[in-house]
């Protein structure tokens, strides 16, 4: 029997009528197939890949990434699902370690992907998170990072393309405990048709996080007549000596950009397609992995299929 599980909770609530405080996701916990768990321990000379394929109506998989002091590791998680799949990733980043996690959705229309990531960073460690939401299924993602150690950092890059009735529901919370910690969150994407997206991004400067910096930026290209976008960028601050910034730009193709394309013989529709693909292709290239790029290209198809 399905029950509503509460995910993607804002760290501090706001007006309920906005529908952003949390998400209730119907899930059949009793009939969820456990696909097991894996542990990756750094160092790893080559990137570690997980092609996670859902099984049955509901399935779940757990990945643990452990990076002891002064090690580094790159992990690819590729989500293939045609029904409901939950993936839970836990990262422990030891002192001066570097963990790169690249998550790519390669899901089918009508599927549901529930992604949960939790990470803990010791001094001078760094997590680089890339989320490429290329799949056509609904995508729910709840990510948390605790920058506990002094000098630790998180860089998160999120790209998406919402199509048809797709739901993209994202929550990323960074708690900055240590001194001189850094967070940088960039979310960028496009919405077509009747796609719905929520992005909640929170930078929380805890007391004692002196010298820390946090930046958050979101750009949303609205392309469909029935699209819906909700953006909730929070900065919470209990420390004086910090700098936090967030910005958001939401809208259709602006006249200046359109003029740029048209002056090069590219029409509005093609320009929109190019920009809709751009956020995902840029991240796939940044991931430095040909397979990742191939998945994105497969999901996006040719320009005319975007």
């Amino acid at each position, binding site marked *: 029997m399905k029950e509503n599980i509460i995910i993607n909770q804002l760290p501090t609530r706001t007006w309920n009528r906005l529908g952003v405080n949390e998400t209730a996701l119907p899930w059949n916990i009793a009939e969820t197939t456990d696909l097991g768990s894996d542990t990756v321990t750094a160092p790893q000379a080559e990137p570690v890949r997980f092609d996670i394929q859902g099984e049955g109506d509901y399935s779940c998989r757990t990945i643990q990434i452990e990076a002891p002091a002064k090690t580094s590791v790159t992990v690819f998680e590729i989500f293939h699902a045609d029904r409901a799949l939950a993936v839970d990733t836990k990262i422990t980043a030891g002192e001066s370690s570097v963990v790169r996690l690249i998550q790519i959705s390669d899901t089918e229309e009508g599927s549901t992907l529930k992604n949960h990531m939790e990470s803990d960073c010791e001094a001078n460690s760094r997590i680089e998170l890339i989320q490429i939401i290329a799949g056509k299924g609904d995508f729910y993602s709840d990510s948390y990072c605790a920058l506990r150690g002094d000098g630790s950092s998180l860089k998160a890059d999120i790209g998406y393309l919402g199509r048809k009735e797709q739901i993209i529901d994202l929550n990323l919370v960074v708690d900055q405990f240590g001194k001189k910690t850094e967070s940088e969150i960039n979310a960028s994407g496009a919405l077509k048709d009747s796609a719905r997206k929520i992005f909640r991004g929170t930078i929380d*400067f805890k007391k004692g996080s002196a010298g820390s910096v946090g930046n958050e930026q979101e750009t949303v290209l609205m392309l469909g007549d029935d699209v819906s976008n909700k953006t909730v960028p929070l900065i919470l601050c209990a420390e*004086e000596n910090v700098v936090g910034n967030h910005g958001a730009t939401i809208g259709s193709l602006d006249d200046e950009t359109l003029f740029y394309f048209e002056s090069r013989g590219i029409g509005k529709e093609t320009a929109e397609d190019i920009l809709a693909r751009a956020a995902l292709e840029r991240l796939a290239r940044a991931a430095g992995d040909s397979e990742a790029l191939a998945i994105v290209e497969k999901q996006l198809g040719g320009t005319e299929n975007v």
Partner: protein
Amino acid sequence: MADTKEKSYVEDIDRSVYDIRDEEHDAYRMQEGLTPAIVDQLSKEKNDPVWMQQFRLQSLQIYNEMPLPDWGPSIEGLDIDHIATYVRPNTKMQNDWKNVPQDIKDTFERLGIPKAERKSLAGVGAQYDSELVYHNVRDEVAAEGVVYTDMESALKGEYADMVHKYFMKLVTPHDHKFAALHGAVWSGGSFVYVPKGVHLSIPLQSYFRLNAKGAGQFEHTLIIVDEGASLHFIEGCSAPKYNVANLHAGCVELFVKKNAHLRYSTIENWSKNMYNLNTKRALVEEGGTIEWVSGSFGSHVGCLYPMSILKGDNSRMEFTGVTFAGAGQNLDTGAKVVHAGKNTSSYMNTRSISKSGGISTFRSSVVVEKNASGAKSSVSCQSLMLDSESRSDTIPAMDIRTKDASIGHEAKIGSISDDAVFYLMSRGMSEEDARALIVSGFADNVSKELPLEYAVEMNNLIRLEMKGSIG
């Protein structure tokens, strides 16, 4: 950035002007609490028309059925069973200061209201506890057909139908628990009607003073600016500090008709035992403009988010605000806008300052409805933390349902730049003055929008807040 810095000690505001208490010799003080009998009694005391009696009781029922909000600052210290919802001063409303009882008149003199009236206002309403004690409008303004009167007179006089038509239609008792409370126990406030095409070149002002200990103030302000007319309305408020909670749950409803313009300015300086749970809303029709200018300095807990509904095509709103949260204060402020018409625009520009353990939260929502094509919105909020005992949070939300919109948002949080302080000190300023100047400059988005006298008062408030010894 250095890990630790030499700290400046900053004193709290000298509130002596605001903290003077008058002896309570009220004509009537309702028993504390909130029951149907109390609401009924209040209605009788005010000689309400039948529809208002029923409205109050219906609002009470809604209040009792509604939960407290599960977001925002804690209001645990507020117990409605210990609030007197109606306190009538021992005087009738006057239109000449000479006839106002001496102690009440002295209080308003100290607050500078009669002087401001003589110098720069078209009309003044002064509320003391639950009722207006003074209301007057200049003859030449009245001659243009401008109506500026107390709500009770409007409710029963020649504007009764107009009040019935508009009263709590924009902010209904179903809106939230404290709107329902307001509907049940409202008293006092002002009614303003500016006829078509009339432009008031100088502002009207209402001032609300809550003197009674453990009491609530629930004034209702209803303003209708008719087609092509314009008005600047100024609202001020203060109270002496007590060791028990006081409550302010006023309600402001603004109707801005086609091509009309309304500026609504507020300098809020309630005492720091006050729970300020106020609701303000404007409905703006085609080509109309609402401008909010808001300075929040007082209150123990404040929740204030003026809302603008841009219903008409080409309507627009601007919100300019500053919030200063000091010791013992939790001020949750911001604004809300709904873009419903086509080619509407909104602009929010806020500053918040936290010090001495104060908590300042900027909270906003921008909603663009599906049919609101051509909507433009820009939100800019900046927060300044003066120490690490304080908190400053920014909680904006945007809900955009049309592709044909241009929405921008930016927020920044930080501390006073050491370089800026050093620069000013190198030119002969003390550190204290340098920091005060920087904070005043930080808040100049509001002060430059106020009439000169009020801008000076606001800058004085900031300077007093910043005054202290350096250590």
